[in-house]
């Protein structure tokens, strides 16, 4: 029996085609039917134009694309012999805006995707305005981004060598107020406890004290036997580096270093998306991968009991809201505004270079690769997180999300698992 299912959260549409065998899913096809040709458009443009074009790949993780682009250009400039170091201030501001983007992403996914789907699975209809909760906290943190980046979505304030903004103490205080407000909301509505108290949670038994919407969600998953579904390969990779995230791969309990050059894209049949693999194997990217590589105690405890299941995946993503809010607060406190905003003073752009920029976006690792010949982009490659997680099957190997849906008994349950990875079709196909 074949069941077709359309999924259209949160950015664009995906189509799932399930094959059932004796009441259980034994195969699944994931299709994305949107194409804009951003890589083709970039070809032939001036290198710095990438800074305004690539953010427009995606309305929800545009900032990650900007940072990947600027890093790709910077690595290319260095490759061509330019020498420059970013000031700590510029690095910290970029980290701040990027972290805020992750926070708003996670929150919107939780309230606009996860809760509605959970209610659909449980056939319940609670009187809760998810959209308002999502928009309130997302508004608050994106305002903090706008203080440094000018606007969200679609800012281009990062340039090779640093950032264009030159914040004052007033700007920093305004941003601090907004982060404090986001923390207040998180404490009151999301976790129902003090942030510091939450961050000290390390074991599963301590989770009982968790309140708020997050607590409710975890107990509901556990009570309805939903915690353990959605397991995949238990194999993770993080490609982006920052002061906070470490790049590595993890298989079972072993963590090892990686080399970017082994990342390959493969064409798939029947869909406009390409698959992304490392040394010809699928890896899961995203908050769960980052937490496992970072050895976050509570995620390690969850993984021990539930492996890479739905509950660990959801927990890791919401957990990142708390740790990133705490992190951004620290970034603001230590920002030295007397440093230079941009250390690459010259407007000159090398005429021939190739560069790579990697960043940890909300849904996982994002790579931009650029080749420039005679001052014009000759090739631009964008490999997005959803190409890792939501790929179909290639060469007999199943993609990560596809693998996690096998064996489930209904298409609603499978959609829930699929959405725990978060659909972003505009990124997947670009």
């Amino acid at each position, binding site marked *: 029996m074949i069941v077709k299912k*359309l999924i259209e959260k949160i*950015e664009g549409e995906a189509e799932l085609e399930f094959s059932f065998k004796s009441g259980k899913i034994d195969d699944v096809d994931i299709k994305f039917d949107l194409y804009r040709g951003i890589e083709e458009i970039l*070809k032939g443009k001036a290198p710095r134009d990438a800074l305004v074009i690539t953010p427009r790949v*995606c309305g929800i993780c545009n900032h990650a694309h900007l940072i990947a682009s600027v890093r790709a250009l910077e690595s290319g400039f260095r490759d061509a012999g330019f020498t420059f170091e970013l000031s700590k201030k510029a690095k910290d501001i970029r980290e701040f805006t990027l972290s805020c983007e992750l926070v708003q992403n996670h929150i919107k996914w939780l309230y606009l995707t996860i809760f509605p789907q959970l209610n659909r699975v449980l056939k319940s209809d609670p009187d809760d305005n998810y959209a308002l909760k999502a928009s309130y906290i997302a508004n608050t943190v994106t305002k903090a981004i706008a*203080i440094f980046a*000018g606007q969200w979505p679609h800012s281009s304030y990062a340039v090779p060598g640093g950032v264009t903004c030159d914040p004052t103490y007033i700007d920093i205080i305004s941003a601090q107020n907004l982060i404090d407000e986001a923390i207040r909301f998180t404490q009151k509505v999301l976790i129902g406890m003090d942030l510091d108290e939450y961050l000290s949670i390390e074991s599963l038994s301590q989770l009982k004290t968790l309140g708020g919407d997050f607590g409710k969600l975890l107990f509901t998953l556990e009570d309805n036997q939903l915690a353990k579904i959605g397991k995949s390969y238990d194999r993770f990779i993080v490609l982006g580096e920052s002061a906070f995230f470490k790049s590595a791969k993890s298989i079972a309990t072993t963590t090892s270093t990686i080399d970017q050059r082994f990342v390959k894209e493969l064409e798939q049949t029947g869909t406009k998306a390409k698959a992304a693999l490392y040394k010809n194997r699928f890896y899961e990217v995203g908050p769960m991968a980052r937490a496992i590589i970072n050895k976050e105690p509570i995620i390690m405890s969850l993984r021990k009991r539930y492996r890479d299941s739905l509950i660990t995946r959801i927990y890791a993503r919401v957990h990142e809201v708390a740790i990133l809010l705490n992190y951004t607060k620290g970034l603001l406190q230590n920002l030295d505004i007397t440093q230079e905003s941009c250390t690459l003073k010259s407007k000159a752009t090398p005429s021939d270079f190739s560069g790579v920029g990697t960043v940890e976006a909300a849904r996982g690792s994002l790579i931009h690769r650029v080749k420039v010949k005679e001052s014009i*982009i000759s090739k631009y490659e964008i490999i997005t997180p959803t190409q890792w997680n939501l790929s179909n099957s290639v060469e007999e190997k199943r993609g990560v999300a596809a693998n996690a849906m096998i064996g489930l008994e209904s298409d609603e349950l499978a959609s829930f698992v699929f959405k725990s990875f978060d659909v972003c079709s505009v990124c997947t196909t670009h």
Partner: protein
Amino acid sequence: MASERIESIKSLFTAKSAKVETNKGEQYYANLYEKCKTRLESLQELPPVSNKIKIESALEDEGVNRRDFLKWASATTAMLMLPASFTPLVAKAATLMNRVPVIWIELQDCAGNSEALLRSDGPKVDEIILDIISLEFQETLMAASGHQAEKQLEDAIATFKGKYLLFVEGSVPMGMDGQFGTIGAKAETFYDHLKRVSDDAAAVVAVGSCATFGGIPAAAPNPTDAKGVMEVVNGKPIINIPACPANPANMVGVLLHYVLTGQIPELDSLLRPKFAFGYRIHDNCERRAHFDAGEYVEEWGDTGAKNNFCLYKMGCKGPMTFNNCSIVRYNEGVNWPIGVGRGCIGCSEPDFWDKYAYERPMANANIKAPTGGVEKTVDQFGLGLLTAAGIGIGIHAAASVVAGKKGETNE
């Protein structure tokens, strides 16, 4: 040759459609006031199109008092270029927004405008957006998805036939018979989808640069033959709200104007509402004084950058971009690109990716600080600059087309 070009540009910007009349005379506003009053009274008679929360209780729940609400209303009245006496009417119109059904569809897009709408403008106006307007169909916001959502859309079209406002986000890919973008289980092309939903709409509002002028997907070499809504939809009133993303203040403005008057706002030759696109970024820029004084940022992070000097030499397109960013700003008025020292990229102008892009300076414009009074600066220098830039834009457009072709043959 050059003088001909100057004349043609002059005529373009002095054409009747380009003029913004902020004062249309007492009689005009007196008539309009009466008309709006009657319109609002008749709307009030109607039941809300769907059972949504009342604005009064929503505002109360969120701790917004009447005073703050009226503050928002008076700011919005000013933005719509109406006299202050209209403030009570605008406030009333906001409470009646749930009488007008709205359908929002996404085509070839990045959902950036939905994202922008989600964090709408003004004190707590997100309540107005999410709770008060009758958003009958919006993929990102509604709980339903997939087949269920398709059904909801069909129901909304049938129920509100001829009455709903259709907001469209994203361009329409026409290449390969529309196969670059399809929607739903029947794989309906975006073009067919748009046709079907727009046929029964009262008016179509194209939101963002993709829906208005094709945006990024239409940039050279336009791989999917992407087009704006006005190029493919005929026989319907169309309102364009360009920019990438479109400013939510302008989306709310258009909607409010429709509720208030029952009509679409006055448009320019590119179908943009004049209240938002009647002026250039440059006209109200906070860094304008530095432009007039000849003080420019010359390199990223230089002394000029530290002192918020003019960004024209860094490629700012403010002087040739029509939009109200410099007044309403973004993210609830927190900031805007020029506020963080990054020039305007002209994202609300047609073909801006190929013509303007960012940082490509405009024909190495040799700018001299104007002499004479401020008036002269605005009228004469302003137009002179526009002309020079117009020519520069032409050169760059040609250069980028050549560049595009060169890149292709290299591959």
